[in-house]
């Protein structure tokens, strides 16, 4: 039985924040059920690592070089978006790009890590959801009676092989650390890999630009993950600690939901959970996962394997 590992093992995953480990330090973590050891030493960084860091717009000025071992095997490492990434694959897919990481004037904010007892796919799906804002992030990202999710667009971009949701707008009492009152926020979402999601939202101090917030999910196993939120913001005022604290608050509120969803794995059987129009991004995400057989962290019923149904057919999805 294909458990989705076949797809998942060829992606890159974050395992640490860049510069977090000091020379001489090592750390244990897990990835896709495998035990990993990260070691930081002062050896010269090898060519493949430096290439990758340049592509991701990083300077590679960190104090030590990280080596990652799994069962005695040395794994590839690259730096991107202020994190260290690795893969179990010898022929990994290319790591997705976030071009805003190179834009001058943006503050790049790695927000730490949140351990969540849920499927990595549930964590991504929750990140794509706006309808929960008034109930889970009350008086911050949403508030009753402003609960309506207006019609928006979702597509699967075949060129980049990404799920994209656009033309989303939602009323927010405090859209970000830099906002000083309620505004209608615009959103665009991208899912460039099954366990990563990027959003672009109205930037209160710079209306012509959009803030970028992403989550990079490290699957420890199918039912446990580390979520590494990351931001690229135009905000010259807030302190780094305040920016991180704001994002951590939001994500801890999400965790209280994520650890109480049944089942822990994301059900891909359309009969298991009923979507509505507001869930079009989640519906497209589930379809896209199915299309790739990206089943690591998903619950697949025998039913849905047999009929290869392409996703929820709830009548309310029809216009």
């Amino acid at each position, binding site marked *: 039985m294909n458990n989705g590992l076949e797809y998942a093992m060829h992606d890159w995953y974050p395992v640490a924040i860049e510069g977090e480990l000091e020379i001489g330090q090592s750390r244990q973590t897990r990835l896709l059920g495998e035990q990993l050891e990260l070691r930081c030493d002062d050896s010269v960084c090898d060519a493949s690592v430096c290439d990758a860091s340049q592509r991701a717009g990083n300077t590679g000025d960190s104090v030590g070089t990280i080596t990652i071992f799994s069962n005695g095997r040395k794994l590839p490492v690259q730096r991107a978006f202020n994190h260290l990434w690795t893969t179990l694959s010898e022929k990994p897919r290319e790591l997705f790009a976030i071009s805003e990481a190179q834009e001058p004037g943006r503050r790049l904010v790695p927000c730490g890590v949140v351990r969540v007892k849920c499927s990595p796919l549930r964590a991504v799906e929750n990140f794509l*959801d706006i*309808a*929960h804002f*008034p*109930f*889970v992030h009350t008086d911050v990202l949403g508030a*009753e009676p402003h*609960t*309506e*999710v207006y019609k928006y667009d979702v597509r699967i971009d075949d060129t980049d092989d990404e799920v994209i949701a656009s033309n989303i707008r939602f009323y927010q009492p405090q859209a970000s650390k830099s906002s000083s009152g309620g505004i209608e926020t615009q959103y665009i979402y991208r899912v460039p890999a099954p366990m990563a999601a990027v959003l672009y939202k109205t930037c209160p101090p710079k209306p012509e630009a959009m803030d970028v917030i992403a989550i990079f999910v490290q699957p420890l196993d199918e039912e446990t993950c580390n979520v590494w939120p990351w931001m690229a913001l135009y905000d010259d005022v807030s302190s780094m600690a305040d920016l991180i604290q704001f994002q951590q608050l939001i994500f801890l509120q999400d965790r*209280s*939901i994520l650890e*109480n*969803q*049944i*089942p822990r794995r994301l*059900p891909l059987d359309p009969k*298991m*959970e*009923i*979507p*509505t*129009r*507001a869930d079009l991004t989640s519906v497209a995400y589930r379809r896209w996962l199915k299309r790739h057989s990206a089943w690591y962290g998903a619950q697949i019923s025998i039913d849905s394997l047999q009929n290869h149904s392409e996703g929820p057919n*709830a*009548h*309310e999805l029809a216009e």
Partner: protein
Amino acid sequence: MTTTPVALARDLPVQRVMRAQVDGCDLAIWRGISGQVQAWENRCPHRGMRLSYGFVRQDSLACAYHGWHYNCEAVCHYIPAHPELQPPASIKPVTYSVVEHQGVLWVNTRNEAEVPEFPEDSIGIRSITFDCPLSVAFEACLAAQLSDEAGLSLSPRQLGDAPLILSFGNQQQADSVLLLFQPSDLANVVIHVLAHHSYSVDGRIGISQWCESVRRQAELNHEVAMNAGMECTHE
């Protein structure tokens, strides 16, 4: 599957929701403003969120995740993301039969809930969770010494086996203290404790403390048995 006690009724005030487990089945139990109690599968049909974390408004239970409102007929009647939408009638949580009887809530996850007979003039003292299997908890309760307020010893007798009910009494008062067992899963038991209404406040506190000492003994017995079992496996 039999009817099982899941809570003392007074522990579920109006417009509140609580979680209970019966033989591993996870339940959301809630009471609307009209006072009626509902017992549902603890899972929102939308995105699988446990409904016991939700909130009650009037006679509806709303999910904590997206605020979907379900009425007393378990029909979803309001989806906040689409305020104008009349939700399809197919969106329904799984419901179970529940009755409120003599200050106790009883649930049956297969059939209509049927309440067992037990003495009427008792009042709820507390519910207490034992971190051990049903049989261990039951043995510990049977073996525990209990006296009434006058210091006269009470002896246990079993009133029913499904649900399991243990009554402590003596010649002065036949059913002085009642224990109703709720096997929540294989590893845990909740015991709902009732006492004759003539007990003073101090007497009720005494029963509550007695429960805690029995729990300590039961959990200790369980631990000893587990360790003994492990030693056997090693040999």
